[in-house]
């Protein structure tokens, strides 16, 4: 077991950092905010850590914490200044935010290393540290997926107008998602730069957003389990199937299209539907009886139903 972990340390590390990035996109997404800003947070976390460690000799953990906090602060400000926008307009604003940051990375001279980027980021973060951080975040995120809070989050996403008519402060929830998303996205970048020991503008461009979004869509938007399943799938699949490695983009693109058209809830959504159906299967006849007893079915429905049964 330990041997296997040592052998695959890089892939495991990649899975975990990609997972954190996916969570950073998933949190606003669960509230109905399509935000591509996570890539920007990732860049701030990654570049911030690299600059502090290689240019100012700051210790590894201090760098990681400072850079992640910086991402959270920037995210909070971004959330405030774009709070007037919603839907696709907000999505566009976050795309331009992330791409502006990558333009800054290219043009940052010796600070960001220009097109070459920064390298030689060698700290003392092990795979166990990264795994520990991921577990803590899973633990915290899982609280938002149960009970009252999850209900309110669902309502905010599915129908924000309805949510606010139900007394849910939609603006507050959405605004709060920014610093959280920023912190986790920054952390993902900071840990990734330690894993890869280098960062360059190429590694923080739009392709990364597409990957993270793909992961969430395939895995499922509603739960961290979806983000984890998607991360495992996308990091390991090309390793296992060489064919997939060669045609990576085509396979991903096709999968994403299929998921978008056929299973909007992702793998986790399919599983939940199945579980729900199984749990009500026993009660289904009862439901039909109750409905009939209530005598509510309108004429058309009754017709179509009797047509099916008959």
């Amino acid at each position, binding site marked *: 077991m330990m041997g296997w972990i040592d052998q695959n340390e890089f892939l495991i590390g990649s899975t975990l950092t990609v997972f954190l990035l996916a969570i950073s996109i998933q949190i606003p997404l669960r509230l109905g905010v399509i935000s591509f800003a996570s890539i920007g947070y990732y860049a701030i976390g990654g570049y911030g850590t690299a600059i502090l460690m290689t240019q100012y000799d700051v210790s590894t953990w201090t760098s990681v914490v400072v850079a992640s906090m910086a991402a959270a602060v920037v995210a909070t400000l971004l959330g405030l200044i774009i709070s007037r926008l919603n839907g696709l307009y907000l999505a566009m604003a976050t795309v331009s935010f992330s791409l*502006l940051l990558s*333009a800054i990375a290219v043009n940052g001279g010796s600070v960001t290393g220009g097109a070459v980027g920064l390298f030689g980021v060698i700290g003392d973060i092990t795979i166990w540290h990264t795994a520990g951080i991921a577990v803590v975040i899973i633990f915290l995120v899982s609280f938002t997926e149960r009970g009252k809070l999850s209900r309110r989050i669902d309502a905010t996403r599915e129908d924000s107008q309805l949510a606010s008519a139900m007394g849910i402060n939609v603006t507050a929830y959405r605004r709060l998602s920014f610093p959280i998303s920023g912190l986790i996205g920054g952390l993902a970048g900071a840990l990734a730069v330690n894993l890869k020991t280098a960062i360059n503008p190429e590694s923080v461009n739009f392709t990364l957003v*597409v990957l993270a979004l793909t992961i969430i869509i395939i895995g499922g938007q509603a739960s961290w389990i979806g983000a984890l399943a998607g991360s495992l799938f996308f990091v390991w699949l090309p390793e296992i199937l060489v064919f997939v490695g060669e045609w990576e983009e*085509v396979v991903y693109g096709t999968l*994403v*299209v299929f998921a*978008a058209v056929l299973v909007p809830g992702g793998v986790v959504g399919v599983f939940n539907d199945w579980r729900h159906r199984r749990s009500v299967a026993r009660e289904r006849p009862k439901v039909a009886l109750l409905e009939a007893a209530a005598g509510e079915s309108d004429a058309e429905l009754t017709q179509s139903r009797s047509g099916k049964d008959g």
Partner: protein
Amino acid sequence: MVQDLLNATTLASIYVLFALGMSLVWGTIGILNFAHGSIFMFSAFIAYLVVQQIPLGMPAVIAIAMVSGALIAVAMQYLVFQPIMKKAKNPHAGELQLVIGGIGLSAIPISFAQRSTLSNPFGFSAGTFETQAYTIGGVIITNVMIIILIVGLGLGVGTALWIRNSKKGLALRALGVDPEVSAMMGIDRPKLALATMLYSGALAGLAGALLTYYFNSITSESGDTLLLKAFAIIILGGVGSIFGVILGSFILAFAEFAVLLYTNGSWVTAVSFGLLFLILLIRPQGILGKKEVRRT
């Protein structure tokens, strides 16, 4: 100086051709098509593959690219976007699925082109068309530029007038304002949506072929760069406004030239994001856009 203005105007005309179809699709049937850049690139790529086999002239190359673009766009609409819209539980959920579907779609042709060209630029040099340059009063203008200027501005203004004045244009605008009302007006939404996508795809193909002639070659990734610029153009002008697309294209093209002249060239790509971000903060409905009209 005159040369720069001319070059910027030519670039603006290309932007118009690219962004026009996208804006039309977004403003009327409500799809922000992330795959528009790939349609653009792949139409030119198909024309390139044909030209490699048969040396064709410009009209034939453009026709191939336009037909390819139209077919790809219609296929996307029919196989992906339409099913998503039909299934969506609410318009908002549909919005995200459409964005994601578009992102997924765009990856497929790009990857094919990349593998087949080994990520090298491709062009129509095997064709019979020759670029000719004319010098008029110290200003150099090529025959390609003349075609781009005429086609770009002509189609831009023509489409805008058509949308504004024709009966079909009215139906399209009704679709953009309120799908429910337009359904009551007896508009066949899926059919009109398909027609809009067809037009948009043909325009993307046209832009792809003309841009390839203009720059002599493009790469598999050219579409993505333009896609992001088109976001800026459409939002600058105002979603749903075709004159807005023309205005936005000119603003972006001239801003990029100004940045190119006065600073280090590597900031040029940032101009579009910068403008996009600014306009969203100051006036999200765009320069010519109206605030959302809603009525029950």
